[in-house]
């Protein structure tokens, strides 16, 4: 799993532009930023991570499409939750590590990041965009509920950013 560099900034060149400014120069700037973003997304190295996650999501949807798919009576993956998870993955900063995908027995989509011993984040997305998450950082844990609308919820982005930065720092120190 690659570690992110630009995760600390919830907005930036490589996340979808969220500006609502409507002046001519603002619109021109937005267009340039989008061009740069699309250029980055088109690069093989960056695209590969996103595509792998989207492929895994697609495969999980295929498996979890019938009642009881897990052998224990799970509900099928909710189609709306699938679409929101797709948007969530596409909204991740392009340098962010991509999660492993699975499905929860209640039909939600589960996204898991593991960075090594006691460093992990798990997010569950439902059909309304509710993101329930838990994060382990050493012996401290954090959990909460956020809503996904036009971007990755701040506390999830921060948790992911911290875990990625700490892992990168540990790897450099080694």
């Amino acid at each position: 799993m690659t570690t992110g560099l630009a995760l600390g900034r919830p907005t930036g060149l490589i996340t979808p532009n969220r500006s609502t400014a409507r002046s001519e120069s603002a619109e021109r700037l937005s267009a340039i930023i989008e061009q740069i973003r699309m250029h980055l997304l088109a690069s093989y190295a960056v695209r590969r991570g996103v595509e792998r996650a989207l492929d895994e999501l697609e495969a999980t949807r295929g498996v979890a499409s019938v009642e009881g798919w897990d052998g224990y009576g799970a509900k099928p993956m909710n189609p709306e939750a699938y679409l929101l998870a797709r948007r969530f993955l596409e909204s991740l900063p392009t340098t962010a590590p991509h999660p492993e995908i699975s499905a929860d027995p209640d039909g939600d989509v589960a996204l898991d990041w593991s960075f090594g011993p006691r460093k992990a984040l798990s997010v569950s997305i439902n059909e309304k965009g509710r993101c329930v998450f838990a994060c382990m950082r050493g012996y401290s844990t954090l959990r909460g509920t956020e809503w996904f609308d036009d971007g990755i919820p701040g506390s999830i982005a921060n948790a992911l950013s911290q875990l990625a930065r700490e892992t990168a720092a540990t790897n450099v120190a080694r």
Partner: protein
Amino acid sequence: MRCPSWLAKLLRRMWRVETVSQVPRELAPFEVVTRILYSKTQFSSQRMRPKRSAFMPPPSMKLSGIHVTDLLDSTIWEIAEKNTMRSEPGRDTIYARADVPVEQFLQQKLRAIRDDQPFERHTSVVGWPAPTDMNERKERWIEICLELSESPDVKLAIPPGPIRLKTKTES
């Protein structure tokens, strides 16, 4: 000072002889319960870890497992194959299992109850927190399942090949 292994085994056996006739019975911390995984999406073969979703409980809040302490690997697969496979979606192939020391459940304030229902050695993991706020309930379940999936004491085992339900002519 640690017990020599023969003494530990003897003590475990004595504990079991004393309690084996009681069903349902709560399993001791040194026992092991396995969670059978019927879907490839519930573990990472690359990291050799079960994913967090593999431990999420159903609405009944009883997570099914099998009591497998001291059993051979091949015996565990046989028990799972013989007792749990059915010709219905989700139950026709076994891909892996996650072996969880009961101590790990206890650390999360869960209990493993061997109930032998619907088959011998069946175990239910109970005691899941149930706050009335459903968001909080899910948060706490995710937190617990993340701890279990990331614990180095929880081991993923993968059979040499997926175990598929035998058709009547095969059996």
